[in-house]
């Protein structure tokens, strides 16, 4: 029996070997390995390759997996010489015309889509891309490095919120109360124990009774009332506010990556901010502008991007919208009460306020949270302190008196409050 099985295994191996053999024969050997160079040299060449890859190749190629073009990992195994591969990169059509069988095959396989010619890349640069960066990526060297670099910021946690503190104080307060009452009970019992034969308690000075003066008790009561009152009022004011609110979203979209690392402008996606009341949550059409091509992210790989495909009905294999799109139910973070009218364009376009003033450094947030308290006091304060773009906007020319005062030097600036920005009907109607 066992012999028979071993024989079968050997047979399979032989078949496998036979299958690989022709390709193996075609493949060229990498001219570089990571062993025969110094670490610094390797790092430099990997870095150069990465830059070149991002600039020239990434729109159509991934290291692993198909995009517009084939996967880059192990490309060398398909070519019979390094020179041919370099030539393919520099001008693929020449190679196709020359009738190279593999070049023709790959050209036909990808619907005769012509790969752009990269004549500007030197042979050495192509080697940097293919033999250093791609190899490094494939071996996981690059990813490990990036993970180390990104690791620090990933573990962001929500800020300690008011209610948590409040619970802590309550527990401490309750414990203190229990301690005091226990102390009172024990001292009472103690007093009973030390009763004299005639029923008169034996005068005994305890530590507790020393402190048990009227003055001290009333001070304690006052402190307690002030402490509790302060917390109740503070809690009541905070009712309905949710600074630091950081809900989980249906897709783990990272502003840190998009706005921070990739430096995509806020208004590329939030298109309404300069023209509408709403900044607008982008529709999937905006996501798909890039994510038709970018199919993998640095942190979650393909899993999160696959969710966009699921929602939008995009089929990455056939590169088309196959299914009906479904809405993404994002959780709204910045909520104003219904009786408040806020207009983004007034602040962004007219006021020239940075998004970060109210939303915080979103470009550093892996998961977005509510930065500002969004309370009326916070709004009003800003309106009192912020200057209006008075000089450059003709609309404000009607405020002749202010212009005169500025000319005469009687007035340095005009704040939002000066032109009525703290009046009720500016936001409540």
């Amino acid at each position, binding site marked *: 029996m066992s012999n028979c099985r071993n024989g079968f295994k050997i047979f399979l191996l032989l078949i496998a070997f036979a299958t690989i053999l022709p390709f193996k024969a075609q493949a060229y050997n990498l001219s570089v390995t990571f062993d025969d160079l110094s670490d610094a040299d390797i790092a430099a060449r990997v870095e150069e390759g990465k830059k070149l890859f991002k600039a020239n190749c990434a729109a159509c190629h991934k290291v692993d997996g198909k995009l517009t073009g084939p996967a880059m990992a192990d490309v060398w195994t398909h070519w019979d010489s390094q020179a041919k591969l370099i030539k393919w990169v520099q001008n693929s059509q020449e190679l196709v015309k020359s009738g190279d069988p593999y070049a023709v095959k790959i050209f036909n396989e990808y619907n005769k889509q012509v790969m752009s010619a990269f004549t500007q890349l030197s042979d050495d640069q192509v080697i940097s891309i293919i033999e250093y960066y791609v190899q490094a990526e494939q071996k996981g060297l690059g990813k490990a490095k990036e993970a180390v670099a990104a690791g620090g910021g990933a573990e962001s946690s929500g800020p300690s919120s008011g209610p948590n503190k409040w619970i802590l104080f309550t527990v401490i307060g309750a414990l203190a109360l229990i301690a005091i009452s226990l102390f009172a009970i024990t001292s009472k019992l103690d007093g009973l124990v030390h009763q004299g034969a005639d029923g008169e308690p034996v005068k005994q000075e305890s530590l507790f009774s020393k402190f048990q003066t009227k003055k001290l008790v009333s001070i304690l009561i006052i402190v307690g009332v002030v402490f509790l009152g302060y917390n109740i009022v503070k809690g009541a004011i905070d009712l309905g506010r949710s600074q630091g609110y950081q809900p989980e979203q249906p897709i783990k979209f990272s502003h840190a990556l998009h706005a921070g690392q990739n430096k995509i402008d806020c208004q590329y996606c939030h298109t309404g901010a300069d023209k509408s009341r709403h900044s607008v949550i982008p529709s999937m059409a905006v996501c798909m502008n890039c994510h038709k091509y970018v199919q993998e992210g640095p942190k979650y790989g393909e899993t999160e991007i696959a969710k966009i495909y699921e929602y939008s009905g995009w089929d990455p294999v056939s590169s088309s919208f196959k299914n009906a799109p479904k809405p*993404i139910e994002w959780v709204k973070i910045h909520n104003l009460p219904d009786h408040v009218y806020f*207009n983004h364009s007034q602040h962004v376009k007219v006021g020239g306020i940075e998004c970060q003033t109210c939303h915080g450094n979103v470009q550093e947030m892996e998961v977005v949270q509510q930065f500002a308290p969004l309370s009326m006091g916070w709004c009003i304060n800003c309106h009192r302190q912020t200057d209006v773009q008075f000089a450059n906007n*003709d609309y404000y020319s*009607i405020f002749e008196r202010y212009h005169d005062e500025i000319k005469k030097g009687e007035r340095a600036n005009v704040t939002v409050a000066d032109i009525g920005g703290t*009046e009720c009907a500016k936001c409540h109607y």
Partner: protein
Amino acid sequence: MSNNKYWQSLEQRDETPEFKEQAAKEFQDEMPVFDYVDDTTKVESTGRRDFLKMMGFSISAAAIASSCKIPVKKAIPYVFNLDQSSRIPELVPGIADYFATSYAEGGDFSSILVKTRENRPIKIEGNTAAPFVKGGTTARAQASVLSLYDVARLTQPKKKGESITWEQADSEIAKKLTKISAEGGKIVIISNTNYSLATQKALATFKAKYPTTQVVTYDPVSLYAIRKANQITLGESIIPTYLFDKAKVIAGFNCDFLGGFVNATENAKRYSANRVPTKENPNMSRHYHFQSYVSITSASADYKHSIKPSQEKAVLMALYNKIAASTGASSLANVTISDLQESVNKLAAELLANRGESIVISGTNNVDIQLLTNAINAMLGNYGSTIDTAAALNLKQGNDEALKALSDDTSVKAVLLLNSNPVYDSVFADKIKNIITKAELSVSFADRLDESAELVQYITPDNHYLESWDVLEPKKGYISFVQPTINQLFDTRQAFVSLSEFAGATTTAYDLIKSAGEGFTTGFIASLGNTSWESALQTGFINNVSESASGSANLSATVSAINTKLPTSNGIEVIFYESVALADGKEANNPFLQEMPDPITRTSWDNFIALPYTFAINNGIKAMSQDSTVKTAKITLANKEVVLPVIISYGQAQDTVAIALGYGRSQGVGPAAFGSGQNVYPFLTYDNGTVSYSAGSAAYETLKGTHKMGMSQRYHTLQEDNNLYNRPRRFRNNIVKEANLEQFRKDDTAGNEDRAKIKDHLTTLYKGYDSPGHHWSMAVDLNSCIGCAACVISCNIENNVPVIGREEMSNTRSMHWLRIDRYYSGDPDNPDVAFQPLMCQHCDNAPCENVCPVNATNHSSEGLNQMAYNRCIGTKYCANNCPFKVRKFNWYDYQGNDSFGGWNDPTDASYMYDNLTRMVLNPDVTVRSRGVIEKCSFCVQRIQASKLTAKTEGRPLKDGDVKTACQTACPTNSISFGDRNDKNSEIHRIFFDNGRNYHLYEEQHFMTNVGYQVKIRNTDEEPEFTFVGAKEDKA
């Protein structure tokens, strides 16, 4: 004896002690607390334990409510079709889109713009680019956006009450039609007037397929007599365009051309164009009106005379004879009209003095009367100058004779009801009901289960017009488009598409209207390329109407056709009329229209018997009820009777009563229509080729019963206090001021003489408000206001003003931010009428602001009296202290918007209560909840939006950039709004350079930001009560 010049009721005129007490009260009725508390819970039985129980409950309820988690809100972006090839332009949430389309209902037509937000239509505006009207609509057009979100609409085709699919309906109906047609059976399509070119094309297709088809057109309120008379006079069966702007003398005979009749919006625009005298051009037209009931048109007239319907012909004949005597035309038989002869002589003299610049018009559906007006107009040479027959109207094409013939036809095998409800609103309702029930096939295209649709086999519901495509030709040479502003809400289909489908022609609405262009009379679509077609659609209309009027009349044929036999008059005569709010009743289920106070009687939610003053007093009707309970009466006419509440209408002709049509609907029409008033269509009679809207020999009987009526003029009374303690009499201000044209010509401050003196004596301890930027102000011209209430409905829709229902209206709790007060002066049997739109006056010295304990209402640097709803705690001190009574308190959660909504709302206040209806709400305006005061904000959301546009464009705000909702709706431009600090603005000119401008209670130094312009009447007599103070001063 009172010095009150103007009164809203006789009690106010006579200043009875009851009235004074009533008017001084903030709320008219005692709080009905004990209605809600039964014996067991009355105060005396509430012990300590009950108190603790309630307290405990309230505290725990509050604790639970406040400890709830903040709800998680979602932000869901739009799902667009991601396929690049069919990508629609992306809509930006928060930015409104406007679509040009058309409103057409009954005799009312407007080219309109529809404001959509996030793809929902939320507001109608007049299309300012459209010719003739240039903005402005009727109240009905304004309210029609709410009808889109009507819960009573049918959601899919029905067969005998069961829901079916369109395929099933199409195949079954087509099969039956084919069978009937093959057998030679008669197919009848009963339609109200339609001037849709697409429908006409579909009807042609239908007729080609089923040649036994006959189309019968009728109108609930018919003007067939005009077309019939014009067939004789003009040789064409048309209704001409009346150019009121070119007329110096207008003589109306029972014709409500500003509120009903036909083409009211354009009439109002043209009429008002020549009714506002200025310093530079101190001229205006003179308007005579002979009326049986008081309409807004007769209320606007300079000279009005009460006539019975049976007298109209005699008066017109007398007028004819008088004019014929001067023009040399043959005269008619002599008539005696006793006391009216003098007025007719005066009118005749003025008409003769203004030949070619006058209009004589009657709305009575009687051929002889129409021939008489035609003859008079022809003698005066008005055809081709003030009456444009080339611009013939296609509205009101109903043929009364055809309907009569149909009703007697027993061979009808199939009936299709196209945009019509003959079982409710036709004169032959019973006979047509018979035809429908006996027919082999009956189909209705009704959008709801109306009185006729209840009886038919199939209902194939039509779209709402805001979901539809269409091409209309309301006037010869004027094409107006209808385009959808929202995707279809329900599984409905446009009637003309259904008609084509029944005829086996599969098509879409869009294709049909494009191809309908081939049939356009002016043939322009063929010459338009695709882009032109689209730009025409974007503009909303194509106008080929000639600027100059044309037309000529055949006088002799007209005169010889007149039957001079006079009708006999006996007993009480009843007039059936279209109310301004509901018209023929098509939109009876629109709660905004039901709640809109009638401009004259100020009642809502019911029709009523309008009684003349003396007649009412003689029949024991108190002049005005102290609460909303009014007596009911019974009218018996030709063995039919109707019981309705009675309301005195000052100016109603003696021995006549008037009742509005359009009420008394069945349950299927919807919750607002059902139970409101009584249907009086059954009283209409067919008389000698036309439908008659009046009848004699009626019996009247006051009943013991009473009815609780929504009456909005018995509260919110502004008082002219003649006995202000420490003020000299010369400072007595008037609320309504008026003068006649002669006085105005001499002095442009006529009627307003006191103002200069008041201003001289005004001093104040207050510092006043600083307005470094804008100072918003409004001016209302009492001269051009016709009381049509379009502004009221426009305000309601723009500002999310709730509908409160009959019960709450009768509880004096009207929520309208803008109301139109109606004032009478003079003889109660035929008084002069003045309308005064009253909204928050935005006083710079506001009495409401000082008394608010929480500073919820305060003043802005732009002159606005602001109202912060969320700061309001509902003390109502401000409402009590407001001299104009314009602050409204939310007694209930009328919109059902807060989390405890629906707790104790009165059942009939819930018209706006479901999610579908709430789609009409304006997202830029807070929906108020229970327990807060609200009031006019000067449309601050529009001010802010226009300012923002100017800021983003980096330019100063121009005059006219900000238009309030009431202003845009007004068909007569009587409301102006703007920045008083802008020296080039219209409002600045009115406030500082118009002698007619005055402010209410100016002597009290409220410094209101709303100005009114003195009403000028074009009468020879000076107003009956002249200004007392001025005379004293002169003395």
